[in-house]
C-alpha cells in the first residue's frame, strides 16, 4: 500500500520525514477543494502499519481500500461527498444533518476531511472493538462540542437529526414532541445524578446495564 505510482501532490518532499509518525500527515494533507490549484492526493500509511493499528487483516484492508479509492480517487473524503454518499442510503428523508455529525465523529483529527486511516480506524472500533470502545465512540458522536459532556441540546440535535432521516411519511406519524419525549427518556435512563449532563462514565455504565443495548452491540460484528 505504500507503493507510490507517480505523484500528484505538491508536498511530496515533506511527506518522507513524516513516514515515521503514525497518522502524521496532518499538516500537509489538507485537501484543496479548489481544483485549479492542485490535485492533492493522500496516500495512506503502509498496509502493515494499518494492520497493526486496526483489527482488520490484510485482505480486509485491501477490500476496504479498493472501495474507498474507487469512490474517492484523491484518497480523502470531504464533508460534501460524505453527505452525498450517506444520503443515498436514506432516500426517504434528509440525512445531511446526521451525516454532518457522523463526519465529525469520523474525522478524529478535525482536519475537515476523512482520510483512509480515519475511515479504517473508526470501522475497526465499530466492528471489531470492545464494548467500551464502541460506547466511547458513540459518546464522541453525541458530544457535538467535544466538551466531554452531553447536554440536552446536543442530544436533541442528534435525535432530531435521526428522525430527519426517517422523512415525513412514517407510521405512526411523527408528533411535534416525539423528539422531546425521546430525549427525556434518554436522559432519564442515562443521567444518573440528574445534573442535566451525561458524562462518559455515566453513559457507559447506563448502557452496560441495559440488556437491549448490549445485545444489539453484538450484532454488528459481521458487517465486513
Amino acid at each position, binding site marked *: 500500500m505504500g507503493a507510490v505510482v507517480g505523484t500528484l501532490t505538491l508536498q511530496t518532499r515533506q511527506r518522507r520525514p513524516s513516514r515515521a509518525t503514525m497518522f502524521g500527515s496532518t499538516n500537509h494533507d489538507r485537501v484543496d477543494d479548489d481544483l485549479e490549484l492542485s490535485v492533492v492526493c493522500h496516500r495512506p500509511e503502509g498496509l502493515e502499519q494499518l494492520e497493526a493499528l486496526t483489527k482488520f487483516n490484510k485482505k480486509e484492508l485491501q477490500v476496504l481500500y*479498493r472501495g474507498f479509492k474507487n*469512490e474517492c480517487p484523491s484518497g480523502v473524503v470531504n464533508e460534501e461527498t460524505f453527505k452525498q454518499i450517506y444520503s443515498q442510503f436514506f432516500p426517504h428523508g434528509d440525512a445531511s444533518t446526521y451525516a454532518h455529525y457522523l463526519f465529525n*465523529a469520523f474525522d478524529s483529527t478535525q482536519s475537515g476531511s476523512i482520510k483512509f486511516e480515519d475511515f479504517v480506524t473508526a470501522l475497526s472500533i465499530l466492528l471489531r472493538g470492545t464494548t467500551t470502545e*464502541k460506547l466511547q465512540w*458513540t459518546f464522541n458522536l453525541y458530544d457535538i462540542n467535544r466538551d466531554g459532556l452531553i447536554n440536552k441540546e446536543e442530544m436533541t440535535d442528534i435525535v432530531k437529526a*435521526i428522525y430527519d432521516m426517517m422523512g415525513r411519511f412514517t407510521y405512526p406519524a411523527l408528533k411535534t414532541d416525539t423528539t422531546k419525549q425521546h430525549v427525556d427518556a*434518554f436522559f432519564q435512563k442515562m443521567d444518573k445524578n440528574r445534573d442535566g449532563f451525561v458524562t462518559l462514565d455515566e*453513559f457507559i455504565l447506563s448502557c452496560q446495564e441495559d440488556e437491549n443495548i448490549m*445485545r444489539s452491540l453484538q450484532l*454488528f460484528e459481521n458487517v465486513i
Partner: protein
Amino acid sequence: MAAGVATWLPFARAAAVGWLPLAKKTMPKPPVDKKSRNDEILFVNVSGLRFQTWKNTLDRYPDTLLGSSEKEFFFNEDTQEYFFDRDPEMFRHILNFYRTGKLHYPRQECIQAFDEELAFYGIVPDIIGDCCMEEYRDRKKENQERLAEDTEAEMATDTPLPPHSTSRERLWRAFENPHTSTMALVFYYVTGFFIAVSVIANVVETVPCRPLKGSKKDLPCGEKYSLAFFCMDTACVLIFTFEYLMRLFAAPSRCKFMRSVMSVIDVVAIMPYYIGLVMPENEDVSGAFVTLRVFRVFRIFKFSRHSQGLRILGYTLKSCASELGFLLFSLTMAIIIFATVMFYAEKGTKGTNFTSIPASFWYTIVTMTTLGYGDMVPNTIAGKIFGSICSLSGVLVIALPVPVIVSNFSRIYHQNQRADKMRAQQKVRLARIRLAKKGTTNAFLQYKEEGGFQNKLQYTANDSALCLKNRSSFEHQHHHLLHCLEKTTNHEFTDELTFSEMCMTESVGYRTSRSTSISSQQGVTTSCCPRRAKRRAIRLANSTVSVSRGSVQELDTLQVHKTSAGPQSSRSSLNARTEDLKLNCEDRDFTAAIISIPTPPANTPDESLPPSPAIPGILRNSRSSFTHETVKISSL
C-alpha cells in the same frame, strides 16, 4: 442508487452503532451473508484479448449480462475463464463502465456496432455520461435518418409493381416515375416539350415583328400572328388539362393531390386560358384579362417535375425559411433606418430626388444590395457619408444569413446525390443478393438432383462421392432439414423462374396433350433431367404457349419421378453423368426446377430421349451457356 456506493454500505451499517443507545428496542438480526466474502479476480477473454477484473466490480450492476448469472453461460471450464466472441475493442468501454460507473461513447466506432454491443451486454444506452451523450445522440439520429431515407428510397421507386395493381395505380406510378415504362417516358417528354413550347410562345409573342403592309408601327408578333399563337396556346392548354385530369384520376388521395404544390402550379398555368375564353372582349375587363396572361408564365414552374435541381432549390428555400425570414427582417429594419436618415440629410437640397421617406426606400435598397443605379444620388456631405455607411452595412447584413442557406442547400443536394447513387447501386446490389440466395437454394436443388437423399454407400464412382463430400457437414444438415420440410408439407422447393412460369401457365392453359417428342426408354423414372433439358430447349425455341405446356408436362413427369424413385435407374443416370459431375460441382448457378403439383401423378407415356452425356451438362451450366447447348439437343 449508484452501485459504487455499495462499497460504503459496510461503513453506513457500522455507523448505525451510533443509534443503539437511543433505541428503545433491540435491533433486528443482521442478514448473514453465506457466500464467501473473499473477492476474486475473474478472467474475461474477449476474442483473445484477456481482461481481468474483480468479481465485485462486475457485481455492481446486477441487471446486466456480466453482473448477473447470465455470464455463467459463457464460462469455459477448460480455461476457467469467461469467453465472449465479440469485439475486444468495444469491450474495453463496457468494462470501463463497470469500473467507473460512467459509460462513454468512443467517437471512432460505428454507432450501430456500439448499440449492438450494449444490447448484448444488457446495458441501457441511457446511462451514457454527459460528456459523450450529445455526440451519441447526434450520431444516432443521423443514422436513423439515413436508414429512413434508405428504406424510403427502396420502397418508393424501383420496387416492381404488385401483380394485381389496378390501372389507376399503374397510371399513378407511371406519372410519378417516368422511367418505369416506355409510355410514361414518352408522355414525360411530350409534356416537357409542350411546356417549353408554351413558354417560348409566351416570350416570342411580345417581340416586335415587321409591321403589316401599309403600316409603319412595329407590331408585336403576338398580334400579327394572333391566330397561330392562339392555336398553339390552345394545344398546350389542352395537353396540360389532359395531364392534370389524368393525374387527378390516378392520384391515390385526391384531396392530398389537389393541395400539393405541383397541382396548384398546374391549375394556375391553365386557368387564365379558360377564364380568357369565358370573359367577353370587353374593354373594362381586358385590363384584368391582361393581368391573367401574366400567370401563364407560371407554366415554367411545371418544369420542376422534370428537373431534380429545381426541386432541391425549392426544398432548400422551404427549409431555410427562418433564415430567409431573418434576412428579410433585418434588411427591412436597415432600409427604414437608412431611408429616414437619407431623407433628412437630403431634405435641404433643392430639386432633390429624396422627396419622401418611402421614396428614399428605393435608394436604400439599391445601395445596400450594391446595385447603385445612380438614379438617386445624395448631394450633401452628410448624405454622402450616410450613403457610404449604408452600402457598407448592406454587404454585411446580406452576407450573414447567406452561408446558412448555402450550407442547407449543400446538405440537401448531397443527400439527394446519395439517394440517386443508392438507387443506381441498388439494382446491382439486389441482383447480387438474388444470385446469392439462388445459390443456396440451388445448392439444395442440385443436391437433390444428384440423388443426395440416397445412401452414400450406393455410390460407386469416386468422383460423385468426392463431389458430395465437398459440401460441409453444415450443408448436409441444412439440406436434410429442407428435405424434412418438403416431406412435411408435401411440397417441394423450386426456383423463381420456374415458379413465375408456373403462374403464367396457370393462366394460359393447363392440361394439354401429352404428345411430346420425349419418351422414356427406361421407364418413367429415367433421366428426368434430359427431359427437362429438352423442355428447356423447346422453351427457348418455340413460342411461350408451347413452352408453358412443355413446362407443365415437365412438372408432371418430375412429380412422377419423385414419387416412384427407383434407385437403380437414378443411379444409372447418375453414373451417366459422372464425368460431368466433376466439372459442374463448382458451378453453383443451377437452374433446376422441381415444382410440385398437388395432383395425382399421371402416368405419362413419354418417349425417351437416349441419355447422352451432353444433356446433363446442360443442367449444370449457367444460363449464359444455355443456348449453346440447346443447339446440340435439337440436332439429336
